[in-house]
């Protein structure tokens, strides 16, 4: 209540009213006082004047002595005194020489109680100097004849008037007294009435204003406010429009609120529709993404001739980049990386067309340049949107270890061997624009362990917060690191760096990479007997791609594991062991045996607690695991599978 605007308005109005009323009371005080005062003075004046007229020509001495003569005068004056509510009405003869006055007639409004009737009865002479009013009356003046006195006869206001004889000589003076106390009482009475009237009207006005405020201001405001609250809290039950009555501000407000509520309702409806649409679109995009990802082969592949890793991270749900690889006849494998102009759905559709066309021509046995030539013609034939792709297509022949490739305007891949370099550049126009474009073809002999790293500009043009490109220099540095520390896939390394570089920015372009390394895998199956170590030894020693400095070490590890399998895993020595040796950019030795379950990694000895004087055994597994850079064990299909990995690392 205290905070309500009606209350505040009411308080302000009350204050103004009080101020006004106080002014009224002050003004009223003066006017009531003056009016009562003047009224009584006029009584005194008219009485005195009338008495003078009555007594005009009367014999003063005879009035003093002849009671019968005085009686009618006395009665008349008495009536006059009563009629005009006078306190005293008296006639006296002034003696200006002796400074005395002699009372001729004295009328009191109350004889019994009046002190004056005894002390100043007719004929009494007292000393009295005439006051200015009496002197003025004596001189025939009528304007300034009022005196106020306060003595033991009471507080009175006196009007003096002169009595003349028939010749116009002053014979006596008349004094008409009105009671000042009575004047005051009458004033107080009248002023009280005024005060009460003002007070009542004040209360009345306040009540009326309060009622008006309540009905015209508070109530409409409350209704609007409640409806506004309900609009938010009780949406389910729907919005009832506010009634618009009249044309005042509340009507305007209600109208505006109705309008706003309508607009919000429409807006929400639109948003709901949009959200639904977006959900639908998201679901469709998700399906599109699945389909597109389904077009690409797995992100890692391995056979006895090659290991491949790849990644494709679209900037939007679907992208225009792709990688591809597939086996061709006669130990050949085709690798492709490409980038369609644009992003999103249009790029994805064009991409699905391009990947199919390239795969189709590659599987028909065409060379890389021919694949690009035909792909270009096919794509540029029906291409209303003028889209194009940059593509790098290569075929690796495992028999000859020759990689033949052609390029349609794509970023040149790196060859990671002992050093990092880009492949010799056979340049060519991006595919899909001009028909009959010719593409050069180049080839290179790859060593086992070399890696070809193919990527799209989503890597080199990844931007950081300061809008700086990742750049090829960074890629080269990462790959240089990789040549000396090959314990991770180069794709993971680059991806990790790019992601760290672009932290805090939205991915601007699809990120796609493909790397492959030629490898050689040899397998032998042996009986678990130590005599067969010779076969393992010759396999390792005769593999050309293993550097000499590693051969004895690898054999040491292989011997220890094999001997261990013979002694522990195969108690009866009748089982068989499959030994596989894979050389790529690292060497992987795997042992498969069907003996009893035995995990050598768990049983590895702690060399620091090995005591040369007492303990024999445990050294072999320790040696093998120390030589390997990584060792993995699993028990699968009743077989112990132990894999030792050794990276090429110059010591």
């Amino acid at each position, binding site marked *: 209540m205290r905070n309500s605007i009606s209350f505040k308005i009411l308080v302000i109005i009350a204050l103004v009213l009080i101020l006004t009323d106080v002014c009224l009371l002050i003004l009223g005080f003066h006017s009531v006082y003056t009016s009562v005062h003047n009224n009584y003075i006029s009584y005194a004046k008219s009485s005195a004047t009338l008495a003078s007229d009555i007594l005009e020509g009367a014999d003063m001495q005879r009035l003093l002595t002849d009671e019968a003569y005085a009686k009618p005068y006395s009665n008349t004056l008495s009536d006059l005194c009563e009629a005009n509510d006078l306190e005293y009405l008296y006639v006296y003869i002034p003696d200006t020489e002796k400074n005395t006055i002699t009372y001729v007639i004295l009328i009191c409004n109350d004889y019994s109680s009046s002190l004056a009737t005894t002390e100043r009865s007719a004929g009494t002479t007292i000393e009295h100097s005439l006051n200015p009013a009496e002197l003025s009356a004596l001189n025939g003046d009528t304007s300034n004849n009022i005196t106020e006195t306060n003595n033991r006869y009471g507080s009175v206001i006196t009007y003096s008037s002169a009595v003349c004889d028939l010749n116009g000589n002053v014979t006596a003076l008349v004094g008409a007294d009105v009671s000042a106390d009575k004047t005051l009482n009458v004033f107080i009475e009248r002023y009280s009435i005024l005060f009460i009237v003002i007070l009542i009207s004040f209360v009345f006005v306040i009540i009326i204003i309060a009622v008006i405020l309540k009905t015209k201001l508070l109530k409409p405001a409350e209704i609007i406010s409640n409806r506004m609250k309900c609009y938010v809290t009780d949406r389910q039950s729907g919005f009832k429009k506010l009634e618009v009555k009249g044309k005042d501000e509340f009507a305007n407000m209600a109208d505006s609120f109705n309008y706003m509520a309508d607009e919000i309702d429409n807006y929400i409806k639109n948003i709901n529709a949009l959200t639904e649409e977006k959900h639908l679109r998201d679901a469709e995009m998700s399906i599109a993404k699945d389909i597109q990802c389904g077009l690409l082969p797995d992100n890692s592949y391995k056979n006895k001739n090659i290991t491949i890793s790849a990644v494709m991270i679209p900037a939007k749900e679907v992208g225009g980049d792709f990688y591809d690889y597939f086996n061709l006849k006669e130990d050949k494998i085709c690798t492709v990386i490409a980038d369609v102009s644009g992003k999103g759905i249009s790029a994805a559709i064009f991409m699905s067309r391009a990947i199919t066309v390239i795969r189709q021509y590659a599987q028909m046995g065409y060379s890389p340049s021919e694949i690009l030539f035909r792909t270009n013609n096919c794509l540029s034939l029906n291409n209303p949107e003028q889209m194009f792709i940059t593509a790098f297509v290569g075929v690796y022949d495992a028999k000859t270890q020759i990689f033949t490739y052609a390029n349609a305007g794509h970023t040149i891949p790196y060859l990671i061997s002992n050093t990092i370099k880009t492949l010799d550049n056979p340049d060519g126009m991006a595919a899909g624009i001009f028909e009959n474009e010719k593409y050069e073809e180049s080839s290179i002999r790859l060593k086992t362990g070399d890696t070809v790293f193919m990527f799209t500009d989503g890597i080199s043009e990844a931007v950081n917060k300061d809008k700086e490109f990742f750049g090829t220099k960074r890629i080269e540095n990462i790959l240089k690191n990789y040549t000396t520390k090959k314990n991770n896939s180069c794709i993971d390394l680059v991806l990790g760096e790019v992601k760290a570089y672009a932290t805090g920015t939205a991915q601007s372009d699809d990120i796609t990479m493909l790397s492959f390394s030629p490898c050689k895998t040899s397998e032998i199956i042996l009986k678990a007997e*130590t005599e067969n170590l010779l076969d393992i030894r010759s396999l390792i020693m005769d593999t050309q791609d293993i550097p000499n400095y590693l051969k004895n070490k690898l054999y*040491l590890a292989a*011997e220890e594991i094999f001997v261990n399998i013979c002694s522990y895993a195969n108690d009866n020595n009748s089982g068989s062991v499959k030994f596989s040796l894979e050389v790529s950019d690292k060497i992987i030795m795997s042992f498969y045996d069907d003996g009893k379950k035995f995990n050598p990694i768990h049983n590895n000895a702690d060399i620091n607690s090995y005591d040369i*004087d007492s303990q024999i055994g445990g*050294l072999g597994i320790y040696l093998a695991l120390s030589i390997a850079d990584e060792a993995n064990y699993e028990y699968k299909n009743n077989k112990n599978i132990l894999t030792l990995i050794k990276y090429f690392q110059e010591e």
Partner: protein
Amino acid sequence: MKITKKAENNTTILFIEGWLDTQSSPELHAEIDSLEEINNLVLDFEKLEYISSSGLREVVSAYKKATNAGGKFSIINVSEEVMDVFRLTNFDKKLEISAK
């Protein structure tokens, strides 16, 4: 593997050539077993190309035989590659081993 024995004063020197692995270590075992009245024992690994854990075990038994008999045991002329194996197994700290 080829083993050549040479005795001078109180010291027996065994020259071991080639590969000391699972197959060949029994030969060394037999050779050490056949030694009688030894005092100091020296294994000369100048021409040893390869040693495996079975070879290490023969080294340990040779060491025990010599020290039990009150003699000294040492390995000399160890190639870098074989030394790697000694280092891995901490043998280089326990035994008197000198490089080539």
